[in-house]
């Protein structure tokens, strides 16, 4: 078996196993075991894929992951060949970790659902398996239509999971969830079709003309460049290959066309994320969904949106992304602060965590749109955030589900001090809460810190103000999470009235494992309250991963560098070009200014030879162009500022102290400088040196 077959196997396995449930005897135990077996098998396949990712491809001595592109990519099989439609698949590090997250969360949720779902369980597990197939399909697709089909198909199982197995308002929640996300993604489909049409409609002649016009080069040059690109093969034909369409969109589309494409993509993905004004479906859906549904929704489905943004929006419409990034950043920041405050006043634990997801995903979007000329910290951080949020928030929903099974309430006011009666549960709950707050040493910190760093450093698109505002979200995050922990875990013990209900375990044996951690000699009734062995098994891997990723994210971050750089490179180049252009303009301006001053001085000297004697020494030291790299910098400014300015006729010279700065920058820009040597950091506040962009970095 070739390793390439592993990837479609991850979709096919649950897809085929799902209907097979109806062939099983109608017994909960067996259906559950089958679903769990399939999910575990799929997780094993995912682990095998990771192993292959770390092995070198044949004929190479670098691991597939380190090569950075799509690996284990198969041509797939034809679908509608005339329209270039194929089912094709492949993985890069970005999708790999999300696939692993999905494949990990699925057996965990199935394990956790053992006691929660006792009716219509065959449908339940069928939908769960179908959902897994669809989610993994979304991440592995390298064909837009395949992506879109899987993306949309996730709605169907989720719709039924919420609508059938949810709590009291489930029908409304299912409907809102469905309509909201579906409406958005229809527009995304329109955008994708438009892009494919754009690609197909442009013959090579068109492409050359458009390109030469967009870049201001001659048609011959444009053709010559096109011939070196893989795009040369695909442009003018029907294709839905992501890379081909990406190349077309980023090179041939005008900024306004890109803007429309971005708007269409955002319509679907922003709802899914969800971004601030269109987030209102989420609290309802999360709260009403069964535990497994909430875990999958928060853990994976929300990431389809951010994944779509990084896979499509960023590389396809770089100009538009850079143009719109400040506005999207504002929405993200509003989302962070607004929902954090809303979290604080919630009375329902599950709704609180649901709202917290909106706040957290705001960080993720902020990181995605923190486009910087050279760095990709924000985007890598966002990918880390996707995985980490899936782990910690998924685990929090599992914890809340366990409480709900015991007490049949999620009201904050109804419970208090559960730490005393359920110490093991409390341990896990507090751990995941801390991960969610972004405590360093746990996984949440990595994503949060990196997205904030990214936003802070990306002064062209977002900048310091965004990072400060989003950073306040860190404080508010601590407030609402500790508010919840203080109410639920700490405080005088108070149990909801329904607590003697048959809970947990589903009457199975093996309950003896973990509940001894708390009370020394608890009454028999309370002895059962704490987690049983199955529930501990559910939470332990998540807790271990939270800790591991928090302390050793190094391998993940290393694997993300190259693919994320590939995805953000077009947008980064746009930023770099703008910085360069601005620096150019400033240089020109400074040049003109200098000439004007010299003219003035010359005129003055001709007209008033006597005053010129006074003026010359002052203008003297800075009027000849400085030798490269010897700019006097700020200190020269202060010297210059202290010098007297004798005559009003010379008023332009009052601004003169700025000139050495520009001159220095110009010189620096010409000679170029990259990462400074240890002894001399950037002396200039303006990141002119960074304006060099990818192609210019050759000079460094």
């Amino acid at each position: 078996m070739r390793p390439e077959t592993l990837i479609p196997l991850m979709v096919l396995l649950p897809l085929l196993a799902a209907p097979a449930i109806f062939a099983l005897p109608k017994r909960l135990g067996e259906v559950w075991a089958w679903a769990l077996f399939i999910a575990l098998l799929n997780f094993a396949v995912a682990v095998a894929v990771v192993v292959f990712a770390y092995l070198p491809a044949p004929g190479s001595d670098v691991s597939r992951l380190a090569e950075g592109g799509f690996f284990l990519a198969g041509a797939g099989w034809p679908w509608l060949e005339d329209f270039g439609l194929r089912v094709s698949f492949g993985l890069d590090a970005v999708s790999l970790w999300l696939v692993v997250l999905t494949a990990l969360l699925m057996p965990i949720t199935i394990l956790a659902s053992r006691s929660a779902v006792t009716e219509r369980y065959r449908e339940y597990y069928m939908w769960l398996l179908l959902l897994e197939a669809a989610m993994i399909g979304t991440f592995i697709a390298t064909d837009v239509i395949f992506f879109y089909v899987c993306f949309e198909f996730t709605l169907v199982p989720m719709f039924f999971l919420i609508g059938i197995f949810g709590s009291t308002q489930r029908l409304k929640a299912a409907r809102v969830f469905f309509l909201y996300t579906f409406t958005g993604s229809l527009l995304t489909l329109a955008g994708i079709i438009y892009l494919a049409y754009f690609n197909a409609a442009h013959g090579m002649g068109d492409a050359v003309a458009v390109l030469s016009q967009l870049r201001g080069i001659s048609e011959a040059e444009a053709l010559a460049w096109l011939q070196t690109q893989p795009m040369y093969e695909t442009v003018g034909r029907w294709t839905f290959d992501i890379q081909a369409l990406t190349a077309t969109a980023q090179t041939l589309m005008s900024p306004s066309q890109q803007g429309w494409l971005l708007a269409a993509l955002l319509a679907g993905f922003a709802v899914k994320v969800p971004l601030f004004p269109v987030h209102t479906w989420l609290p309802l859906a999360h709260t009403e969904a069964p535990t497994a549904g909430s875990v999958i929704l928060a853990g994976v489905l929300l990431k389809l949106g951010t994944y779509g943004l990084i896979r499509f929006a960023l590389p396809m419409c770089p100009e538009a992304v850079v143009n719109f990034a400040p506005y999207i950043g504002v929405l993200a920041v509003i989302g962070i602060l607004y929902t954090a405050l809303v979290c604080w006043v919630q009375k329902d634990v599950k709704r609180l965590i649901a709202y917290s997801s909106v706040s957290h995903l705001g960080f993720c979007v902020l990181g995605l749109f923190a486009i910087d000329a050279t760095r990709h910290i924000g985007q890598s951080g966002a990918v880390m955030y996707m995985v980490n949020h899936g782990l910690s928030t998924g685990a929090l929903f599992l914890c809340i589900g366990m409480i709900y099974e015991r007490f049949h309430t999620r009201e904050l006011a109804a419970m208090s001090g559960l730490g005393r009666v359920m110490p093991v549960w409390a341990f896990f709950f507090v751990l995941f809460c801390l991960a969610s707050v972004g405590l360093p040493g746990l996984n949440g910190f990595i994503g949060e810190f990196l997205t904030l760093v990214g936003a802070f450093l990306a002064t062209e698109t977002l900048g310091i103000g965004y990072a400060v505002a989003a950073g306040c979200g860190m404080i508010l995050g601590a407030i609402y999470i500790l508010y919840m922990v203080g109410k639920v875990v700490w405080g005088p013990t108070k149990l909801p009235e329904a607590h003697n209900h048959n809970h947990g375990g589903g009457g199975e044996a093996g309950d003896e494992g973990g509940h001894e951690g708390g009370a020394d000699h608890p009454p028999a009734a309370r002895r059962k309250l704490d987690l049983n062995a199955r529930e501990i098994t559910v939470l332990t891997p998540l807790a271990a991963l939270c800790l591991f990723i928090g302390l050793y994210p190094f391998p993940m971050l290393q694997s993300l560098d190259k693919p994320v750089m590939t995805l953000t490179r077009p947008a980064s180049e746009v930023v770099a070009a703008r910085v360069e252009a601005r620096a150019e303009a400033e240089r020109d301006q400074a040049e003109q200014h200098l000439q004007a001053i010299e003219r003035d001085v010359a005129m003055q000297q001709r007209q008033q030879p006597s005053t010129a004697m006074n003026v010359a020494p002052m203008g003297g030291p800075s009027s000849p162009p400085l030798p490269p790299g010897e700019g006097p910098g700020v200190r020269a400014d202060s010297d210059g500022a202290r010098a007297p300015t004798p005559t009003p006729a010379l008023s332009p010279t009052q601004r003169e102290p700025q000139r050495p700065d520009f001159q220095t920058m110009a010189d620096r820009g010409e000679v170029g400088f990259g990462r400074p040597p240890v002894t001399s950091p950037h002396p200039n506040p303006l990141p002119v040196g960074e304006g060099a962009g990818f192609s210019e970095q050759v000079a460094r």
Partner: protein
Amino acid sequence: MELSTVKWIPWLPAFSAVICCLLCIRPAWRRYAAAVTVAAILASFIIAMLAAPRAGDPEIRGDYETGAYGQEIAAVGETVTAFRWIHFRDYRAFETEEAAAAYTAENPDLRDRPELDPETGAWRVLETTFQADFAYFIDPLTVLMLFVVCGIGSLVAIYGAGYMSGERGYARFFAAVSLFIFAMTTVVMADNLVLLYLGWEMVGLASYLLIGYYYHRPSAVAAAKKAFIVNRIGDLGFALGIFLTFMRYETVVIAEILQMATSAEHVADWRDYAIPFLLLMGAIGKSAQIPLYMWLPDAMEGPTPVSALIHAATMVTSGVYMIARLTPLFELSPYALPTVATLGGITAAFAATIATCQYDIKRIYAFSTVSQLGYMFMGVGMGLRYAVFGGLFHLLTHAFFKALLFLTSGNVMHGLHGQLDIRKMSGLRKVMPYTCWLMFAGCLSLAAFPFTAAFFSKDAILAGVFERALGYHGQEPSNWFFFLGSLALATAFLTAYYCFRAWFRVFMGPTEYEMGQEDHNGGDDAPASAAAHAESHDDGHGHGKDHGRGEAHEAGWLMLAPLFILAAGALFAGMVGYGIVKQLIWSSTATMTMPAIVDDTSALHLTLMVLSGAIAIGGICTAGWFHWLHRDAAARVGERAAPLVRLLYNKYYIDDLCERYLVRPLHAAGEVLYLIDRVIIDGLVAFFGFIPRLLGWSARPSQHGVLQGYGVAMLAALALIVTVVMLAVYAT
């Protein structure tokens, strides 16, 4: 011992924390938690004392006067890497393959080979541009801090083994203490700012868990939450400071930053002016200075060993440590260090006034801690090597005497079943003689009685302030610093007064006391849950098993033994440690920008010694007069100045103001936003629900239900696809 062993210093307590967590599982195992923790911390202490002094160049430490001034940072300290943490790589581009290959050969730590850029045809190499590792920087300052953290830490852990015995949360307590030692050693050893931030937040977590140790008490939960959140506010500033530092220096490794900041070519820009203030926010939060001091007095809800270790001796000093470590960064901004000193001076006086009118022993010492931290801030904020030495020396002596004071007050509390109100106890010297004289030693030191430890350290700070104020270093004489120095002298009087007020009240006078209402061991639940209440008496505290409830008693030997060591430190650390600490500080990075003193300052120092000694004795005498000999006079004075006493007792009402003008409006904003959110939900649901119903009604009037929308939308999508495809086909 090899220097690389130091990387185990944080990790031994970390493993101990994990083991303690596992020991929670069976009640029978829990009693081993103390042994594990003490062993781990002691092992760390031994490693620190044996291996750490090997770091750096012995030449520098040998030269007493010049020390680290003007040295390369590599000669001052050394870095030990444990493992890699957060890395980012970017491409460096080259014209030719040869150039790229040569560059790769020069830098063996590059993991990737050169590759061809498919778009530009240039060669490029991936190299790390952001690097934050679990790496540890060891210089003499670190060694001093490790001595404090691990040394005091193991003493307090031994004390805690006795103090906490019989508690149901015994293992939980030691797990958190181990976690704290892990975090605190990480703070003082961190080689980069991000790792420092990790330790910084983790000590906050440990503090949160330990303040909230008696979690059945709502006040403890509230105090824990307050501590964490107030610290987070400071931490935000710290985080932003780290971002800005990275923006400025393109690295987060402290040694590299300091090297750049101290280099002669370095020209400060606006970022250098802003960085210290952002970092200072973090220091203010952690070290409980104005305006973020409110959490520390409330933090006394935690068990007393925790108050001694975390909220007096170690964690709260991490702000001082951080400023000292990054002093060259602070010096780039002309206003940063004066701000530090001013904040410190004002906080010292402010907290001391509050401490004079508190009645809870632990709260008195808590405000005293805030005040003493203010002294340390003043010391490190002077930017003079003598003052910096004073600040950090005071950190050391304060760790001894304040831990001693807290632990002895823990003995009082232990003996009196949670009684802490000094109005309800008197003349305890006969009941607990050891505790009485141990606390006396601590009070003497806190009051800076001549030749006790704090006398030397406080004097060093005062001398530094007045050196600066009188312009001994070529600076202009400064009225402002003179004012700060005078304020510090006045504070010294208040300090002597309030600590001896407590001591005279508790141990002198007629023997009478009232036992505490609740057992401090925390078995009691608030009566919210009758079941839990009953249970706690079955198994919870274990206190009642040992002895009757009605009698005050002296503490056991396990709790007294560490106190004698601390008392020895509180009395003699000044004389013994003066030269050693001075040598350590002057050969560390903290003073690498500060030249030796030119002028002769011995006259000034002598004057100040006499003056501060007199002030200390004056304060003690005042306290003795009012609170031992003439307690009725104190009551009369208190009545006459009732409004002032009330103002001070209520801590200037600042907590209430915060609650009213900060917390409640924010919460109200949350309510309003939630209302808006619900309105939007309902509005949008109605809106979106309406469209498919309309469409569905027009398409298939006979059907109703949720699936309808899906079908309609699918139809619409298909129509769209077909249209576009047809268009495309006809267009080409």
